[in-house]
């Protein structure tokens, strides 16, 4: 294997990426425009802290109104939740279905009683009156489904005077998640998927490039030189990994500029880049399959969507708002594992040595 040949072909691929306007657009400009558009739309530039409109049906019958009122006052105090009071569940559900609010919270009849029981004996769960606060969420709102439950859960914990480490309290919140989102914007939730999203389009670029070279005789021309298939493949891998690295760096710079600031160490960032590089190899493979099947460059463009679309819809930030069936299907596409690992690293605070992240890396590597 001669480094001279690999280097020459790698330089050629990079020059193509920089000099061919359609390639340059798809590889670099499109992800930047995309990140900017989504970032700005989801509360990045100039948007400040997002506000969620939550409908409240207060059925609390306790003569001590303070408990439910304390909860509502505390929620209003977060400045993230804008409360709308409704007299009955039906009116609130109508408002939810019309999109004027993003969630409905039903405070149960025994809420104050439960609150009082907890205050009387916080360390004696057997004496508590357990109760459930029902929460209905607008499934069309990705940010609301991810942000509202933990905010309410956090507020319940706060008004009960309970610490995060305390074992439990009598208030159960249906659909509540354990993720603390107080310091996260909607952009934080979609950013991991954006890294994945950008790299997926390498499939199309590789497929087009190979099919085009075959169509215009370049593959034939290279095959009659002393270049071995291994050298050729190595050059493709090196060049597209380089492109993926630049792409990931650009997406990171863009998301950072828009406010993406995960509180993780350099190791996590480094690992994220490694993950994207491994994913780019998988995409080169899919691109080659595309080129093998396609008879022309334009056919390769069309065929590449067979690989691009499932990865895009099932494995990036888009997948979070899909049906449970689609989310199960997502587990069959490599992008799902990249997004999951990046989410674990950046949002869930997982370490690079955690089992989830390592399993995700293994899944991407196998693909």
């Amino acid at each position, binding site marked *: 294997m001669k480094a001279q040949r690999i280097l020459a072909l790698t330089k050629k691929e990079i020059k193509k990426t920089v000099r061919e306007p359609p390639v340059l657009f798809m590889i670099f400009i499109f992800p930047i425009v995309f990140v900017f558009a989504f970032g700005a739309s989801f509360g990045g530039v100039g948007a400040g802290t997002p506000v969620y409109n939550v409908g409240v049906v207060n059925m609390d019958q306790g003569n001590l109104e303070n408990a439910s009122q304390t909860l509502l006052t505390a929620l209003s105090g977060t400045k993230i939740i804008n409360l709308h009071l409704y007299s009955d569940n039906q009116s609130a559900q109508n408002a939810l279905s019309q999109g004027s609010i993003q969630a409905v919270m039903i405070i149960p009849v025994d809420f104050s009683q439960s609150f009082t029981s907890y205050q009387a004996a916080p360390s004696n769960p057997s004496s508590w009156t357990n109760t459930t606060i029902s929460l209905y969420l607008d499934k069309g709102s990705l940010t609301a489904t991810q942000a509202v439950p933990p905010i309410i859960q956090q507020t319940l914990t706060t008004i009960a005077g309970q610490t995060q480490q305390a074992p439990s309290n009598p208030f159960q919140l249906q659909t509540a998640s354990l993720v603390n989102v107080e310091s996260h914007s909607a952009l934080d939730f979609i950013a991991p998927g954006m890294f994945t999203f950008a790299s997926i389009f390498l499939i199309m670029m590789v497929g087009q490039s190979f099919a085009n070279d075959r169509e215009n005789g370049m593959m*034939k021309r290279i095959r009659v*030189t002393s270049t071995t298939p291994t050298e050729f493949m190595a050059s493709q891998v090196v060049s597209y990994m380089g492109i993926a690295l630049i792409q990931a760096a650009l997406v990171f710079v863009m998301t950072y500029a828009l406010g993406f600031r995960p509180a993780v160490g350099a190791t996590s960032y480094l690992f994220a880049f490694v993950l994207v590089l491994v994913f780019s190899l998988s995409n080169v493979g899919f691109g080659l399959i595309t080129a093998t099947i396609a008879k022309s460059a334009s056919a390769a463009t069309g065929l590449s969507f067979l690989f691009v679309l499932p990865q895009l819809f099932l494995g990036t930030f888009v997948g979070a708002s899909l049906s449970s069936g689609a989310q199960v299907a997502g587990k069959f596409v490599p992008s799902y594992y990249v997004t999951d690992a990046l989410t674990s690293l950046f949002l869930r605070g997982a370490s690079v040595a955690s089992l989830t992240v390592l399993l995700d890396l293994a899944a991407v590597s196998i693909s």
Partner: protein
Amino acid sequence: MNESAIVIQNLGKKYPDVTALDDLSLRVAKGELFGLLGPNGAGKTTTINILCGLLKPTDGTAQICGYDVQKDASEVKELIGVCVQETAIYPYLTGAENVDLFGDLYAVNKVELAKRRENLLSKMGLLEDAKRRAGKYSGGMKKRLSLILALINDPEVAFLDDPTVAMDPQSRHAVWDFLKELKKENKTIILTTHYMEEAEELCDRVGIIDHGKLIAL
């Protein structure tokens, strides 16, 4: 006959529905410029593709400078230069970058590559346009660049598949002069062409192929 550069024995290429090449036997001497003439689909390109290792024959054998084109493919590739029928160049690279790329693929050392690049670009009348993107070249210039790419490794045997097709007369004559120079350097050249006049002007011998058979020599 002088020492043979190319020895073809009973070469055949059969597809399920067509015989592209049928029992071709031929010897080409070192330093000879051999012309392969014939209509479209006669088997000229198939012959060249087999000789340069792009296609596997279904029958027969072929040797280049004593190496079997199938068994010793890597040795053969070191000895040959191929100008494919398509105008195969990278349009987003400059003329010089195209030449350098193929020089690197043949692992020509940098100093030697620079010399050959200047020499070949100059002889083909492309030196002044060497820094322009090849995609901006005229059709004739692209064909001339394509020819340079086939010869950058200074091959012992060159296969030129219709190198002057669709060229303007000026470019064609430039190529002819260049091929005559190569012949003086004792290079063996297999040239396929549709032009009788070209074959008469350049070739030492001419073989006529039709329906995959060598019908005249």
